[in-house]
């Protein structure tokens, strides 16, 4: 749960993260309660009492309550975001690896843009879906849009301030771009008015707001064009303002002049504007006066238009442009404070985040973005990219650098979260694997406990485990699958999994089950597997015995009786057969003893006889007698034949 991962007293002291209290829905817990964790973020609360001798009669205390966190990222529509950002995240890790030897800022910028475009695509999808949806569904989608919209907005600003490579650090053009992109106020009206290109446009109710808006957004050309559409556009007052707007010096790093020189011409221009204003020529046109005041960076003028905008971000670009156009990117704190201070009421969460960002307090920013209910998606990815760009330095109270710990903890949280999802788990695994060593230990714990509902899922888990060299997990999954097949009475499947997991204990268990199965049903499971198992047969004695016994069946079926008999005798004499299998093993000699050609030598026969007498308890009387008879007959036959042989040899 990413309610908050911070415990640092912030500089502004406004983020006291009191634990959130959730009210349980039923009044089922009057006395003591207990709790038990399930997998992932699920847990159960149950009523409980430890009083041993009292027998409470209140049976209402009898409801279990399962609590689980609802995870926004698991909404199907956000799946694409999760998957695609994972790809970008992994590329970023590679880029960071490469950046250790060479500077890689351009690559980082590219990846940051990639993240943003992923968010934008996601937003488009959400908008599309929201247009179709209704009711609660629509509300949900709209709140997702709000969330991801804010995320994109902040990411963009963050990119400008920390990731992008800005010539001379002169942030103004980028800042204006950001304002125009995210707070496109009046843009449509302006386009409409210019498109119509009619004189007397001031009749449009938003005319002046639009002109002022364009000035505030730094679109001086558009503002001038709009002013020309005024019916009095040719008057002196308008020409005066137009002139001032036109002659405004624009600072550029590539302009070939130093900041000092620029400041001189800038001051000069401002003085000019001031004298125009104080000459009271504009007194008849209060709106033009306002524009002049704005471009001179007059605080009260900005304050007066603040209420027309929903937030102070709208006027931030203009404020910087008309008060300190040479601002570098880390000098925006004062501007932010000035703009935010123009209207003190109604601070939103986004306000706080943007303020902190402009003040360069990344620690605070990360703290704030963790409060967003995107389950840590934003905090994780932004922290990671800032960390790799080397722009993030977070100190604890002993002034040790804990940045990497913060980054790791966020990634681990996020990875673990995704691992709970039934199809996103492999994505989560890739996050955990990028955060060794703890990530892999966590992955091990979670992966081993992934519910295995099908064989295919088991194979998938094993493949993923092997990818990250979690051999222990792969083996454990195999053993569990083996146990599951065993308890279901499928010895063949169990054998297969035991051998796949190379587990000696499990394979011996499975082999026992297969032999036991044979004694009852006279069918050997998984014969093809056993005949081709190769070195896996050496995993356990029982398995080896089973394999040999299976081979005996194969020889017998292909009528290679001599070889079959030899194998059988070696199985009998090696005495590795389990107790319950002796009966089967001894009775298997019967048809061979009765064959037309004798296949057991007299020595073999003696051995079988010996075993039969040693284990007389494993055969009941009638069967034993039958076997004894067959053995005796075979002994007679072979003794005779061998006797002939030796006599001939002797002669």
């Amino acid at each position, binding site marked *: 749960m*990413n*309610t*908050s*991962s911070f*415990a640092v007293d912030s500089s502004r002291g*406004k983020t006291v993260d009191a*634990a*959130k209290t*959730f009210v349980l*829905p*039923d009044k*089922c*817990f009057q006395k003591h*309660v*207990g*709790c*038990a*964790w399930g997998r992932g973020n*699920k*847990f159960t609360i149950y009523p*409980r009492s*430890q009083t*041993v001798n009292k027998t*409470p009669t209140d*049976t209402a*205390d*009898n*409801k*279990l*309550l*399962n609590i*689980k*966190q*609802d995870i926004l990222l698991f909404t199907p529509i956000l799946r694409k975001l999760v998957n695609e950002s994972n790809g970008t995240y992994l590329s970023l890790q590679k880029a960071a690896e490469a950046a250790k030897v060479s500077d890689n800022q351009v690559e980082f910028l590219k990846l940051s843009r990639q993240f943003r475009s992923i968010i934008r695509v996601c*937003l488009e999808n959400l908008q599309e879906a929201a247009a179709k949806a209704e009711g609660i569904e629509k509300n949900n989608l709209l*709140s997702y849009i*709000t*969330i991801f*919209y804010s995320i994109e907005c902040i990411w963009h600003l963050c990119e400008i301030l920390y990731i992008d490579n800005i010539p001379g650090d002169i942030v103004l053009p980028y800042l204006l771009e950001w304002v125009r992109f995210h707070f*496109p106020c009046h*843009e449509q009206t302006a386009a409409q008015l210019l498109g119509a290109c009619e004189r007397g446009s001031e009749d449009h109710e938003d005319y002046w707001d639009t002109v002022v808006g364009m000035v505030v957004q730094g679109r001086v050309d558009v503002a001038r064009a709009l002013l020309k559409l005024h019916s009095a556009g040719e008057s002196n007052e308008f020409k005066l303002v137009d002139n001032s707007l036109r002659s405004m010096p624009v600072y550029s790093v590539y302009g070939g002049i130093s900041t000092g020189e620029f400041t001189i011409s800038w001051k000069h221009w401002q003085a000019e504007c001031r004298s125009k204003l104080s000459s009271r020529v504009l007194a008849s046109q209060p709106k033009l006066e306002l524009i002049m005041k704005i471009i001179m960076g007059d605080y009260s003028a900005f304050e007066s238009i603040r209420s027309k905008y929903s*937030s102070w971000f709208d006027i931030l670009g203009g404020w910087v442009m008309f008060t300190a156009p040479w601002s570098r990117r880390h000098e925006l704190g004062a501007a932010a404070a000035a703009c935010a201070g123009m209207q003190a009421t109604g601070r939103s969460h*986004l306000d706080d985040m943007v303020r902190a960002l402009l003040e360069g307090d990344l620690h605070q920013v990360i703290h704030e973005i963790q409060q*967003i*209910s995107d389950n840590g998606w934003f905090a994780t990815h932004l922290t990671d990219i800032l960390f790799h760009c080397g722009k993030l330095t977070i100190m604890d109270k002993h002034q040790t650098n804990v940045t990497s*710990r913060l980054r*790791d*903890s966020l990634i681990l949280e996020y990875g*673990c979260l995704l691992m709970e999802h039934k199809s996103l788990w492999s994505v989560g695994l890739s996050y955990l694997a990028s955060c060794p060593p703890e990530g892999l*230990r*966590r992955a091990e*714990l*979670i992966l081993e*406990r992934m519910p*295995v509902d099908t064989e295919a899922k088991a194979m998938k888990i094993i493949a993923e485990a092997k990818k990250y060299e979690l051999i222990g997990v792969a083996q454990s999954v195999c053993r569990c699958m*083996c*146990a*599951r097949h065993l*308890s*279901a009475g499928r010895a063949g499947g169990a054998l297969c999994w035991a051998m796949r997991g190379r587990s000696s204990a499990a394979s011996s268990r499975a082999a026992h089950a297969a032999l036991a199965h044979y004694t009852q049903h006279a069918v050997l499971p998984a014969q093809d597997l056993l005949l081709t198992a190769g070195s896996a047969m050496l995993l356990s004695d029982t398995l080896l015995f089973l394999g040999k016994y299976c081979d005996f069946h194969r020889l017998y079926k292909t009528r290679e009786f001599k070889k079959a008999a030899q194998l059988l005798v070696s199985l009998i004499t090696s005495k590795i057969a389990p107790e319950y299998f002796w009966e089967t093993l001894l009775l298997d000699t019967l048809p061979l003893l009765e064959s037309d050609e004798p296949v057991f030598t007299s020595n073999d026969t003696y051995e079988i006889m010996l075993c039969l007498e040693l284990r007389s308890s494993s055969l009941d009387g009638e069967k034993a007698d039958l076997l004894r008879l067959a053995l005796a007959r075979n002994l007679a036959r072979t003794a005779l034949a061998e006797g002939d042989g030796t006599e001939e040899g002797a002669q």
Partner: protein
Amino acid sequence: MGELTATNLFESQTILADHKDLIHDVAYDFYGERMATCSSDQYVKVWDSDGNGGWRLTASWKAHHGSVWKVTWAHPEFGQVIATCSFDRTAAIWEEVGDTAASGSEKGLRTWLKRSNLVDSRTSVTDVKFGPKHLGLLLVTCSADGIIRIYEAPDVMNLAQWTLQHEIPTKVSISCLSWNPSLSRVVHPPMLAVGSDEPNTTNAAASVQGDKTTACNGKVFIYEYSESSRRWTRTDCLSSVQEPVNDIAFAPNLGRSFHLLAVATKDVRIIKIEPIAESAASGNNGATVRFKCEVVAAFEEHYSCVWRVCWNLTGTLLASSGDDCAVRLWKMQYLNQWKCVAVFKNEPVPGDSPPQSRPHTTYIRMATMANPTHMPFH
């Protein structure tokens, strides 16, 4: 700002357990897909997840002749096996028979067979836990008369046969125990922590002090198995815990060099147990100090007796429940500080009754995060 900050959304689901008496324990299986409950009505019930967040009762049987205190699952490698312990002075091993893999809807109720009954205790058996699977199939029980018993099934195919390997008398009433789940046998020998609920009377204190080797007033004891002497010995007693202990739980190790132990006593405690290297271990008088123990957190927020502590799978969150009828979640921050992140509480006012239980009750609404006017324009 509080209400503008996004909150997490929790979903709850009520299950009517239908036990005829108090429920004492709820345990999830290894995968979190099955759930076992036990109660004073002497019954044990097993619930299976239906894959869509619902739970279905698949077995219910009378397991003991007394209150069933605890229920615990064995590793699935050993099959579907649970152990229970009871006031009737026994612990029992149960195995599910039949095809457990088949999606059980057509099967109806499943059958659990009693494979073994462990009758060595002369008093109520208060806790039972299976050992970490790398040690084989081990089971430990503890009883009110303070004897810890460790059983082993030499043949995991034969759950009827359990041999009593060790019997460790502690001389105090033991209420709970926890295995150290650390996988590394080389670094950490098998380890158990037990908690005592012995009330703090002078009598009890005296009897503990009578145990000369470990004169200590603590209520939590650490036992370790020595490969060389083939014995379990008490290697530490946590003197920081002086009040009766109701529950105890080791956190998953995650490859750390130290162990974290959560203790439910008059407050919630998290204790860091760090093994000291052998060379530095020998203290004065030849007595060895095995661990450096440090209370890393002690939370009094329950303002009452704490009954249960429980770690999540990765040991990043600890849930605790107490007499105040609240469940609290504690989380370790990246700077290793612990902090409460959520509290789940009953409605404090009995007057306005909340709506009756529905199958799914979403009761925490998410607040919108930013000003709605900040929506994209196009």
